[in-house]
C-alpha cells in the first residue's frame, strides 16, 4: 500500500510511459486495496436487496391478519432509522445487518451516496457483481487490464458509472415501489379496521334465548362494489344456530355503505371486493 502511494506521487513527475506502467500498478494496487472497499460497499449494496426482501415479505405476510400488527411495524422502518445509522453500519456488521429486520432503510442511503465514492474511479467498475467472492473474481478484472490503455480504462470507467447509475435507479425504483406497497398496506389496514368497527356497531346478537351464543362462530363472504355498497353477503360457515347466523348477515346488511378506500389501487390490492368476515363474540365470553 505504501508502495502504491509512493508510485502515485512519483508518477506525477515522470514521463507518459511511466504513467501507463504506474497506472497498471495503481489499478492492481487499488484493486487489491479497493477490493476491501468494494466488498464493503457491495455488502452494503448487497444488503439493499436483502432488506427489501425482508421488508417485502413482512409486507406480504401481514395480509392474512391485516388489522394491527403491520401498522405497528411500518412506522419504524420509514422514519427513524435512516438518519442515525447510515455511517456506522456499512463496515462493522454486515452479517448482523442482514438479520436485523427493521434496518431496511440503511442500505438505500449508502446506495445514494455512492456517487461520492466514484471519485475513486476504479472501484465501481465491473466488480460490483463479482466481489461477493472477491478472491475468485480478481482474475477477471485483470484481463481487461492487460490490453489496458487510457481509453480502455475510461470506457470501463464510463460503463461502471453508467451501471452504477442504473443500479441506483433501480434501487430507487424498487424502493419507491416498496414504499408504495407499505403505503397501500397501511391504508388497507386502516380501512379494514374501520370496516370491522362498522360491522361491530351493527351486530346485535340474539341474546334473548336459552342457548349461549358466546361460543358460536360464523363466517360471511362479503362482496362489495368499489362504491362500498354491498353486492352480496353469503354465509360461508354456519354457527349451527339459525338466529345467530341471521344476526351476522343482518349486521353486514345494516352497514348499508362500507367505508372503503377511494384509491382504486388500494381497493383492489386490499381485496375489498371480497371480504371474509368472521364473527366471534369474544366480548360475551365468560359472561
Amino acid at each position, binding site marked *: 500500500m505504501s508502495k502504491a502511494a509512493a508510485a502515485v506521487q512519483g508518477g506525477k513527475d515522470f514521463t507518459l510511459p511511466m504513467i501507463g506502467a504506474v497506472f497498471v500498478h495503481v489499478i492492481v494496487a487499488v484493486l487489491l486495496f479497493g477490493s476491501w472497499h468494494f466488498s464493503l460497499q457491495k455488502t452494503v449494496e448487497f444488503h439493499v436487496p436483502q432488506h427489501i426482501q425482508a421488508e417485502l415479505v413482512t409486507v406480504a405476510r401481514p*395480509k392474512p391478519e391485516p388489522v394491527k400488527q403491520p401498522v405497528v411495524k411500518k412506522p419504524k422502518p420509514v422514519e427513524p432509522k435512516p438518519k442515525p445509522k447510515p455511517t456506522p453500519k456499512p463496515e462493522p456488521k454486515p452479517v448482523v445487518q442482514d438479520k436485523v429486520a427493521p434496518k431496511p432503510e440503511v442500505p438505500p442511503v449508502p446506495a445514494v451516496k455512492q456517487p461520492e465514492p466514484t471519485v475513486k474511479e476504479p472501484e465501481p467498475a465491473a466488480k460490483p457483481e463479482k466481489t461477493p467472492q472477491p478472491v475468485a473474481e480478481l482474475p477477471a478484472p485483470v484481463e481487461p487490464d492487460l490490453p489496458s490503455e487510457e481509453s480502455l480504462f475510461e470506457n470501463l470507467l464510463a460503463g461502471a458509472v453508467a451501471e452504477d447509475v442504473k443500479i441506483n435507479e433501480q434501487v430507487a425504483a424498487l424502493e419507491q415501489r416498496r414504499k408504495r406497497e407499505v403505503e397501500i398496506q397501511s391504508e388497507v389496514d386502516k380501512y379494514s379496521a374501520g370496516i370491522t368497527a362498522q360491522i361491530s356497531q351493527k351486530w346485535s346478537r340474539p341474546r334473548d334465548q*336459552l342457548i349461549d351464543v358466546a361460543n358460536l362462530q360464523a363466517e360471511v363472504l362479503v362482496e362489495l362494489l368499489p362504491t362500498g355498497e354491498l353486492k352480496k353477503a353469503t354465509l360461508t360457515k354456519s354457527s349451527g344456530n339459525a338466529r345467530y347466523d341471521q344476526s351476522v348477515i343482518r349486521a353486514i346488511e345494516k352497514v348499508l355503505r362500507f367505508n372503503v378506500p377511494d384509491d382504486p389501487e388500494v381497493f383492489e390490492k386490499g381485496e375489498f371486493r371480497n371480504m371474509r368476515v*368472521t364473527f*366471534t*363474540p369474544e366480548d360475551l365470553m365468560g359472561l
Partner: protein
Amino acid sequence: MSLIKYWQTIGLVLLLAMQNFAYADLEIQVTRGYDAQTRIAIVPFLWEGKVALPERIENTITNDLSRTGRFDSLAPAKMLSQPYDEDGVFFRDWRLLGQEYVVIGHLTPFSDGKIQVQVALYDVVKGQRMVRVTQVVGIHQLRKLAHSLSDLFYERITGVKGIFSTQLAFVVRKQLANDRYQYRLQIADADGLNERTIYRSPEPIISPAWSHDGTTLAFAIKVGDRWKICVFDIRTQKQNFISNDRGFTSSPTFSPDGRYLAYVSSNKNSPEIYLYDFQTGRSERITRNSYIDTEPSFSPDSKYIVFTSEKGGRPQIYRYELASKRSERLTFEGSQNQRARYSSDGKYLVFVHQANGRFNIATMDLASRDIRILTETNLDESPSVAPNGTMLVYATQRGNRGVLAWVSLDGQVTNEMKSDFGDVLEPAWSPYLN
C-alpha cells in the same frame, strides 16, 4: 450485470408473491357486537271511519314490541312522513332516520260495522316488503288482531315465535279486614291488560297452572279445613276437584300430553309429589322421604318430571322418570336451585339459582349439564317463563303492593303492572294459544 438480474429476479418474485397474497380475500374479524335494539318505525295508521275506535292497533303493536326489550320504536313526531300505503314509503328517508323496519296501516269501514285492516311491514335495510296483511274484523277484535300482528312481525324479524297472543293467569288478593281477604283468579293478555276474573274465593287460591292446550287451569284452593286441587275449564267454567287431602296441597302441573296432573301434598307430614292420572282418576305418590319435595314440572314429552327436593340438605333440582320411577339429582352448583321448568324444546331447564346470596335465573343445558346464568333479579316470587323462552314474568313488591314484572332474558325489566284490586301474586304464563 448478473447482480442486477439477480435483483430483478428477486423483485419479480416478490411482486408475484405479493400478487398471490393479494388474491386472497381480505380478512375481517369481528369480535364484539353492540347488541343495539332493533329500530322500528310504526307509522300511525290511517282510519277512514267517522267514529273513534276503541283500540289503536299501532299503539298495541308498539307496546308489544317494546316490552320485549329488543325494539326501539321511533316516535311519530320524528317521522319525515307518515305514509299509509306503499307508494308513500321512501326507504331512503327511513334509512336517514336510522330505521331498520317500517310498519304502515290503513283501516277502512266495512259492511256490518266491521273494519278492513291493511297492514304491511317493510325491511328498510333491504328495501323490500316483508309482510302484507288484509283482514276484516269486528270492532272488538281489534286488540286481538293487534297482538297477532305483533306476533307475526316479531317472528318475521327475529325468527322466534311471538308471545303477544298468549295470556297470563295470576291471583290478586285484597285485604278486607284484619284477617279477612278476598282472592280472585284472573286471566289477562300477555301485556297484563284486558284482565278478567274467572274465580273468586274468600280463602287462598295459590299456584295456578295452565294445561298444555290453554283451555284449563289448575290451582290449589282452601275449602273449609281442606286443601283441594281445582281443575277449572275456562270456557265452560266446569270445576273438578281431584284431591281432598288433609294438609297443604299446592303446585299442580299438567303433563303436556294431558294425561297427568302432578301436585304436592303434605298430608303425610312432609310435602311429597303425587301424580294424578286423568284416565284412572287415581293419585299415586312418587316421592318417598322425610324431606320437602315440591315444584314439579313435566318435560315436553311428558316422560320426566323435574322437581325441587331438600333431601340433599338444601333445595336442589331432581328429575324423575315416569317409566323407571327413578329420580336423579341434576343441580350441584350454587347453594340452592329451585322452580325448574323445561324450555319448550326440552333441551334446557330454566330455574332459580341462588349463589352468594343472590337469586338468578339460570339455564341448564340438559345435554352437557352446563349452567348459565341469565338474569340477576331480586326475585321474591316464582318466575314464569314465556313459551318462547325469551321473557319471564314474576310477582314482586313495589312499595306495599304486589305487582307483576316482566323481564327479558338479558335482564332488563321491561314492564310492570299493578292491579287496581290488590296485590298480584303467582303469575303463570300460558302456552301458545293459537
